[in-house]
């Protein structure tokens, strides 16, 4: 008599399953006309549920090296040829984006460089001949809600390497920093250039740099 009947438990489990499955079934609550304006696309198992917030409390692991359409050797261009970063990434000092050079700029030199035994150069010339942009894969991809201005950092005296690592020693560029908010804040809270550039107003500048609107758009 004093036993939980098995049927009772089974019933409870089944009912719970019904709750769950009924909840997963979707049925557009909006009229079809409304759906043109409202978009019901929230996946019930969104990545947001496993968003970086909790994970990155201990630091998100950096992803594996990225495969680029052309294996571009940064080290050779910088170390062997002695090129400056901003020869190609010329927007870094002038604008928001550092920019990837137009193929035309590559061809400025590579017109003269023989392609024999250099399959990557063939690809480059191929893209140029076809008038197609080279589909570089973003290595440093900030979220769309972040405003990052290269100009302010570069003209303020932040070295490229502080964020991008020793690119001059890399072949294909790799990401070395997490690019997380906390990582950004480390410098925004204290960076030598703040004192150097702002002197007596450094304290104010530090406060400004911690203003959410400095980076969030």
């Amino acid at each position: 008599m004093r036993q939980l009947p098995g049927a009772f438990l089974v019933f409870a489990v089944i009912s719970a399953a019904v709750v769950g499955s009924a909840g997963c079934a979707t049925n557009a609550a909006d009229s079809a006309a409304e759906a043109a304006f409202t978009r019901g696309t929230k996946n019930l198992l969104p990545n947001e549920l496993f968003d970086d917030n909790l994970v990155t409390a201990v630091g998100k692991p950096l992803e594996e090296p990225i495969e680029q359409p052309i294996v571009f050797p940064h080290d050779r261009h910088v170390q062997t040829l002695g090129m400056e970063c901003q020869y190609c990434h010329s927007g870094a000092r002038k604008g928001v984006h550092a920019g990837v050079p137009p193929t035309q700029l590559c061809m400025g030199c590579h017109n003269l460089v023989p392609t024999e035994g250099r399959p990557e150069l063939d690809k480059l010339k191929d893209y140029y001949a076809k008038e197609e942009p080279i589909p570089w894969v973003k290595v440093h991809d900030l979220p769309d809600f972040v405003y990052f201005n290269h100009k302010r950092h570069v003209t303020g005296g932040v070295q490229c390497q502080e964020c991008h690592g020793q690119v001059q020693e890399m072949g294909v560029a790799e990401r070395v920093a997490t690019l997380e908010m906390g990582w950004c804040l480390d410098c925004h809270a204290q960076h030598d250039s703040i004192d150097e550039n702002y002197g007596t107003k450094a304290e104010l500048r530090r406060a400004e740099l911690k203003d959410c609107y400095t980076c969030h758009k």
Partner: protein
Amino acid sequence: MATMNRRDFLRNSAIASSATAVACTWDPKVPVENVLPYVHQDDDVLPGVAQYFATTCTACASACGMVVRVKEGRAIHVSGNPDNPSAVGLCTRGHMVLTETYNPDRFAGPLKAGQPATWDDTLAGLQQAVTQARTDGKAVAWLGQYRTGSLRRLLDELGAGIGLRRVHWDALGVETLLAASRIAFNKDVLPTYDLAEARTIVSFGMDFLSTSVDAMHMIDGWSKARDPKQGAFVARYVAFEPRVSVTSSQADNFLPPTPGTEALVAMALARIVHDKVKYSGPASALVSGVDVAAAVQASGISQEKLEQVAGWITEQPSVVLPGGHANASVDGTALAVATLLINEYAGNIGRSVVFGRELDLGPVNSYADVKALLEDARAGRVGVLFVDGVNPVYNLPIGDNVAEALAAVGTVAHFASGPNDSIVGAAIVLPTGGGLEDWGDAEVIAGLHSMQQPTMNPAQDTRSVGDVLLALGKVLVPAAAAATEVPAPAATEAAPALADGASPAVPAAAPAVVAPTRAGFDAADFGAYVKARWEREIFPLSGATDFTRFWVETLQRGGFFQDATKVRADLVLTTAPAIAGIAAGTEPALVIFPSPHLGDGRHANQPWAQELPDPLSTYSWTSWVEIAPATAKKLGLGESDKVKIKTDAGEIEVGYFASPGVPENVVAVNLGNGHEQMGRYGTGRGANPVRLLVSATDPVSGALAYYGTRATVSRAAGASDVFAAVGNIDQDGRPIANTVTVDEAVAKLEGEAGSIVHLHSIPLDERLVSQGITDMYPEPQHPTYRFGMAIDTNVCNGCMACVVACNLENNIPFIGPDQTRKSRFMSWIRMDRFWEGEGEHQDVRHMPSLCQHCAHAPCEGVCPVLATYHNLDGLNAMIYNRCVGTRYCANNCPYTARRFNFHTWQWPESMHLMLNPDVSTREMGVMEKCTFCVQRIRAAKDSWRDVGQTVPDQALQKLTACASACPSGAITFGNAKDAESTVAKKWESPRAYTLLGELNTKPGIRYLARARFSDGAVSDAGGHGSAPANHGAAPAHHEEG
């Protein structure tokens, strides 16, 4: 930028769209985002940095100056061109040029009978059809909008070459005004009205703050005339028109004559003015026969009132305006002539009614001409018909059987960028690039040569009208024929071919047309044609020596603008046109009024034009009828009831708005909706009021009478689809939109201390004040900037240009009619409309209500996650991706300025390209609100930091999208911490007040109260039972200096 091809455009788009991926969230597990470089990068292109192009707006015939902001090859914003004297800001319809470009229903290429075709085939077919028509002796006709500048010239040339029968017609056209100008001055151009000069503005219906031609220019004058600071006076505005329109809602005295008696009233007024000033000029005899008593009797406007108005007209500099509703009756021209007479008697001609900046809209034909053309078409006498940007099926009365007439034409070719009601059957579509992609120019206002340049590469396979005409001309116009000098006056050349009865009474003035040359057709494309014409005709006017330099400067400034002097024209009038009076009847007279956003209906497929609430009814996405509240009561109408309007021509069923500004003998329906075929946003919404017209015309000008058809109103079955964006008709006695009397405003000039706004304020404890304590907590410190805004409600007429500019700048989604009906507007600016008065003193108060950026913001304290906070620059910041969506902030905002994303709103695929990459798009569940365009602030600070300076006032005044769009300059932005800034000075204006100041939220926006004449002013702004001792004794705010 002209050298970029279509592929470049797509490439650019790809860069930008990757930066604009739609979500607030970042999923680190999706790493593959490409960064696509240019293959060839122009020197002036820097990804991430905006470019600006000065060009010309093509949304209506006014051709105002416009600046287009382009980022990564995509036009993303438009605003007024400050270098172009034609306008200060840009109206709502002007902003639709942008959505038109990215409209998902835009034609991707030429169509024939709905099937895609190639340009080569299409043009070859057209050339053949034209040749065939001419061989068969049929007309090659052109039915199109008003065209000026190079296109007008090209049409002249082509017309001369192939015998084109042209009819230039605009549904909101100026036929009556032009007819009056021809009769009165023997001039084929329109005078301009300089409102800034006037201290009394009397309008017989002109929609000069909204839809009339040159409205932007007149708004500028209006705002000067209304600003007490400008000349220590406020101009009085008297409106004689059948209903309160967006414009006449600003009237100090609203005097609706009995429908059909407007011209009588005008003549009576002319007579009184004539007598008052003891006019003795040659035009004196014209009013000798006017019976004032009869006019008083017929119109229901008392003689005393007329005398009073005449007094205002004569005692001070004044201006009397014709146009709009009242003018669109069978007496349109008579009324327009009468207003010119008043102006003459009052001495306004040459002072406030002037030539020298006259309006020349190119060849202007009347509705009667259109009818005649259609008559010929129906009779099979038209072989080819080009339709250029007009929609005759929609805009012409049903009795005209337009569709049938079009079907009888051998080949109909439409120049259009998107679908409209007239593109039916086997019609050919020649898709145009619209205002942002095509070359062109315009010279609507004399001396203002406005340049239209491509701001981006064509997103679709389109060609400009000019390019098509050039292509046709190259083949069709024989070199020898065109090479001979053909002095073909454009406006009249079609006239001999017209059926009898069209425009008989209009004496045709011979326009000065430079003879065409064959060389025009040799131009490589229309851009080259334009450039060649400028070099030939406009460059010599500049007095410059280097054309290349002149050309570059022209492109930079958006045109070449000559100075002008006011020119007086003498009245040549001998007899005034007869006044017929509209059909008598006991039923109310129907008024069809243009929507300020949809215009004549051409913008109906622009989602923003649909979604912007009407400034008066605050309805959107549909049509409605405005009836008097008494009529609604009489019919026993419930809030969601439908109304049936029936005339001899037809009937429609729409929702209603019980407008206090509509007399019982008038019903008014908005034009613009009720399309049968207008793309996804425009089709099947509301009803087409033109269907109610019996195609009556003004016999003098041949204009269609939009006003005067007798209509019966009854209750219809079913629920209406109207929804008011503003919850209450008035402000329920609350001091939200406040007024001061003109006497007070003029007596206390700007800069003098003390407020003249009567507000309830709680007196502070003297003991605390003496210790310097006025607040429990101190005002936050703003070390560098305190961004603030001043909004002068005195010149705000609720046109909503600020709203749409904000929407486009800040990626605010449109939400569609269903969500609109749930009040879920996303626009950060809500245009409050409080209808405080009735009868003669309507007192409609418009007030843009947006985030007030309070220093003591109620929203900030209650956010549990600090997603909103006050920043060092005085901005009330909102960080979207921190927001959980508790909505507490929105509940606690006394200004209800916060908007919530109830869904992840959707832009159609092509409209993604319109999004501003500097602003996040927001996903469902996130709160948002006005940021004072923080992205623009950020960019300005960034630029000025490069030179080590703070942003100067000059760069801030019009920084925000709303401020830069406002045509009347009502919105001023700036750094209020800088005492020398414009905004700081406006903050100290005697008319300044903070909204709900007694809550001590210390807003970053101050409103400048409206000045009203004391004969119509509400005695107490607040209507609050507070002790009079508090009134005016202390301002409601105790902020820092």
